[in-house]
């Protein structure tokens, strides 16, 4: 009867809880057991960000945190300065950039959402961390 009441009030079956807990713990186990993969990921992350910013490579840190309901990647990548002209991407699939002009990070990240070509923004932002700030329209 108690079981029925529990089910009625939507408490998940304990096997479902077990399954979800296992999924998370194994994800986190696998990440901590594959340091080479994490190292490769960190290298690639730094490489991509370095195209736009000068990065303090020695102090970069990528960690994974097992939280209540998810495993999160925490990347701490100190930025020394913004590049005035993004370095050319390595050979491979072309970037989705529309304009050949130098585009600051903020504009570049938003460019994919823009409906049309955006005028080049040359003004350098002081707030380096605030790369997600939407440009005024």
């Amino acid at each position: 009867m108690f079981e029925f009441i529990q089910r009625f009030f939507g408490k998940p079956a304990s096997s479902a809880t077990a399954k979800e807990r296992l999924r998370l713990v194994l994800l986190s186990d696998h990440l901590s057991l594959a340091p080479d993969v994490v190292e490769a990921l960190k290298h690639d992350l730094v490489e991509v960000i370095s195209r736009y910013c000068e990065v303090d490579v020695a102090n970069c840190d990528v960690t994974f945190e097992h939280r209540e309901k998810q495993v999160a990647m925490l990347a701490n990548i100190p930025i020394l300065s913004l590049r005035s002209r993004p370095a050319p991407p390595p050979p491979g699939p072309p970037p989705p950039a529309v304009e050949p002009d130098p585009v600051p990070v903020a504009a570049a990240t938003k460019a994919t959402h823009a409906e049309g070509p955006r005028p080049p923004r040359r003004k350098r932002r002081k707030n380096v961390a605030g790369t997600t700030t939407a440009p005024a329209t």
Partner: protein
Amino acid sequence: MHELMHQEAAATSAVPRKRGRAIVVTSGKGGVGKTTTTANTGAALAATGASVVLVDADVGLRNLDIVLGLEARVRHHVLDVLEGHVTLDEALVTDKRVPTMRLLAAAQTREKDDVDTAAFCDLISGLRDRFDYVLIDCPAGIEKGFANAIAGADEAIIVCTPEVSAVRDADRVVGLLGDERSVKLIVNRLRPALVRRGKMLSVDDVNGILRLPLLGVIEDAPDVIVSTNRGEPVALDAASPVGESYRQIAQRIAGTLTGVPEIPRERSLFEKLFGGRK
């Protein structure tokens, strides 16, 4: 019997030697039923006529002998052989119920660190020349004992119960076994009634995570406990449903049975009342 001994004598001297399969039974976690699985799978394989040797790699915590009911007949152990005190044949115990099955017991008063991995590996290799199947009962843990037990094996059976701790450890062990070994799964101690009520991980839940070829599923049944109490492998009990599960596992290992393994279902009230075994 005579013919069998003759065959074996021929196998030790004759040139065309067998190349038997060395299979390690492992789990990472302790208490999930590795020894019971080794004993019953070995007995079921031997009952089909194949020659089988069971090797207890759990040095210091010898148990395969008692589960098989052979504890009173063990005179020498694996370290006696490795250290050259006795010959292999002196240490092997023949099972009287299934004469194609032999046991090589572990040393009880020694430690896992006393076993040299390369020497143990050579021993397994030598056994493969004489037997169709070499089943190695791996100790719990992932330390030296585990390293010794897996060294000579080119196949592995993971025993996993439907519990978060067992699944996590099994996942870890699969990673340690490496890609060069064939790894298969036995889900042990399933309780179908609990699975139906959502109170136990199902076989699909377990294998959704481990993603291994499934050899079989063993129900958590009193038969297993009773047979272990008596030292009579349940796999040799023709009337036992769990014994049948072990026999099917043996057939799957031998390749004579294919298709998806049967998952034990909950018995009806009628079956419980009239089909139960004491």
